[in-house]
């Protein structure tokens, strides 16, 4: 759990200043440092990063009237819905975060003693 929280907080901070893929470095490092199991590392990376993207996107969505998110959904996915952009944002960032976390754990195992 502490790994997940660390990933969320640090990836949030990193992305305020660095390119989007800095989230992968954060997930990799935290899981390299602390993770115990492969499945756990993937999950920590996935949820830690995904929650930040979803949360920020939801914040934007609720602060504006939502028409724009529907338009973007139409533009990107050819269907006007608010759910799809939020879902894709979560899955996409989660996948990158999860894979980065898993990489971190596996690299540690491979390089340990």
């Amino acid at each position, binding site marked *: 759990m502490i790994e997940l929280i660390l990933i969320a907080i640090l990836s949030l901070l990193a*992305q305020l200043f660095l390119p989007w*893929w800095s989230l992968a470095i954060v997930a990799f490092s935290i899981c390299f440092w602390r993770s115990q199991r492969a499945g756990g590392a993937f999950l920590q990376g996935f949820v830690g990063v995904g929650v930040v993207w979803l949360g920020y996107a939801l914040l934007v969505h609720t602060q504006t009237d939502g028409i724009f998110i529907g*338009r973007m959904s139409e533009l990107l996915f050819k269907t006007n819905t608010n759910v799809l952009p939020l879902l894709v944002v979560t899955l996409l960032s989660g996948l*990158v975060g999860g894979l980065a976390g898993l990489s971190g754990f596996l690299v540690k195992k491979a390089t340990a003693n």
Partner: protein
Amino acid sequence: MRYTKAVIVSLLTIALIWALNRSWGSVPAFAPLLSPFVGFWQNAESVNNADEEITLNGTKAPVTVIFDDLAIPHVFAQNDADAYFAQGYLTARDRLWQMEFQTHAAAGRVSELVGDKALELDRYNRHLGMGFGAEKSLKELMKDSRTREQVESYTAGINAYIKQLSPAHYPLEYKLLGYAPEPWQPIKCAYFLKYMSGVLALGADDLNMSNVLKKYGTVVTSDLFPDYPFREDPIIPAGTKWDFAPVKIPDVPANPFPDTKPLAMNWPEHDPAIGSNNWAVGPQKSATGYPILANDPHLTLSLPSIWYQIQLVTPTMNVYGASMPGSPGVIIGFNKQIAWGVTNVGADVLDFYQIRFKDASRREYWHDNRWKPITRRLEVIKVKGRADVIDTVLYTHHGPIMYEVGQKPFAKNVPVGYAARWIAHEASNDFLTYYLLDRAKNHDDYRKALSYYGAPAQNFVFADVAKDIAISPNGRFPLKWKDQGKFLLDGTNPAHDWQGWIPAAHNPHVKNPPRSFVSSANQSSTDPAYPYYINWQFGSYERGARINQRLTAMQGATPDSLRVLQNDNRNLRAADALPVLLPYMQEKILSGEQTKALAIIKTWRYNNDVAEVAPTIFTEWMRQYMEGVWQDDFPSNDTTTLRYPSFDRTLQLVEKEPTAHWFDNLTTPTQETIGSVLTKSFQSTIDSLTRKHGPIGDSWQWGKHKATRIGHLARLDALSALNVQIGGGAGIVNATTERTGPSWRMVVALGPTPKAYGVYPGGQSGNPGSPYYLNMLETWRTGQLNELLFLQTPQDKNSRLKRKVTLK
């Protein structure tokens, strides 16, 4: 094993990140676009009414900007330079992508953004000499200290905005297309002018007319393509006396037509729906005793909105109106003393000269009995994802050679191997006209401002608080022999050159005419008594005649009477044509559905309202009927392109020569008549509409059939307004067609303090994520106007004023 696993998963992760971080063809880089930290989410805006102070270090003194509830800025500056700096900054803040994209397009730089699919478009704009013309314009406007300061301050304001812009806050379109804004330069303002000349002053039928002439000779050609329409109601009232002695007009040369070879080109995409209305009623006709002025320019409707409202207040001016992103000052507007508006003239200011080269090296051409050198201009076109393309454009003294023999032309109305003589290649300081109009106090100031104007020529309507009204088809008009440029011209013969200009003071104009109103709707500038040649064809007469009909009858006019007239849906073409055409219909041979359709037409009150079915039938029927009459006589094919006579001439034929042989179809053995052409086209119209919409019913309604579209400039449907339900149409005062329409509607009542109203289909912001992107659309669609708040001081009180921003 554990090494392998670690390597594979790590590589997979890196590959995924790489793939998400780059664009694939036209698919943008997905992760940066979707990231809430830098992606499109950052473009979502909400209503912000908080005061703000912005430090830019570009102004001489602080500038106060008051925003109203429609996010329209009212700029209070202590000097002119600061006002234009603020205009540049604010316009960029709302419209940066649009202003840059339009000037990129004019400069032939779209390939840089989207790759080689735009290469032909870019080549076309470069062969048209857009850069050549923009450079000349820039030189001219930099010579005058007033326009120089204006353009330089405007540029600095735009760049002040770009400089503090982080990628997360780039306008959405940059994120979608994957590029970054570049610094603005003064020449981009000149490119914008050329862009507008490209929209409004590129009409040319010279090639098709030459082909018609070759096929039928001069007698038939001048009979079917006359220089003045059968029905007309010119802008300058017929019979107006000219207050000048004309200068000598060049003689028609002995051989006015070069021996042209038939040329391969398709039908030109001339859009008669791009036009405009404006008028002013004099004190005798208005309820207050002061003039009232109205203007609605019709363009291809697009988003971000074509116009940008702004009020600019300095010690030298207090002007409010519609500006165009990319151009400083106000283009259509009013101040305390005057109001003005524009419609397009449609002058013949683009001609083509057949060029004879000395040899295949194309270094010299024949003119005035000697060989003259060709100049070459290298055009380097950057192409995204490819090597630069270097294009050499050949220039004669006439202008650039658009396309040489063997090259494939992009625009359909440009003949191959001809030099283009175009008004937009002339040096003129068009910004000075608007600079002076923004500050004009009376009719003399207005006339003086107009004298500097070059292109695209406009009908400038005028009204002032001294109760004068005036109108002038104005621009730089070449001094031509009659019909010079109706056909292709001979580039070897100096008698075919443009030989000077109509003096600015001789441009058609009228002040306070006895009928107590002035108006224009792109129809003929004058009656045939005007001594100079401006063009042989203009916009069709219907809108102008309908406006004049209503204004003649109008008494005690208020701004609302003019607003109602702007939304008038009377179809004058139908009112003229149907009583003439219907008696020829062969009703006995119609099917049940066709009879039903005819009954709808017969009971129609000639109104193009949104829920009527008749306009759908009439519009499609007249299109097919024109094809039915003329297609066999003026067939276009791969080697020759022709054009049809006008609707006006065709209707005149029915009225005056109903048995003319033109109604017979040459491709059939039977003898067709006006009745059989009409009936056959009616039947086929009803059949094709039934195939499209099913049996006659609600789906045939004009609004649904027309489905007006206001498209985003990057052709993205999701960012466009589709299927806007509104009446009107081509040739209707409410000129809203499928794609074109009133891009700005304004009504100004002069008086001790002017009262003004306006709207455009869109909003102040060009950001699709802003609440101000489309917030005026519904007001526009329903024919309403917003009051334009004309402030006198930054302390003015009004419940619609929401926000104060200080620029330092």
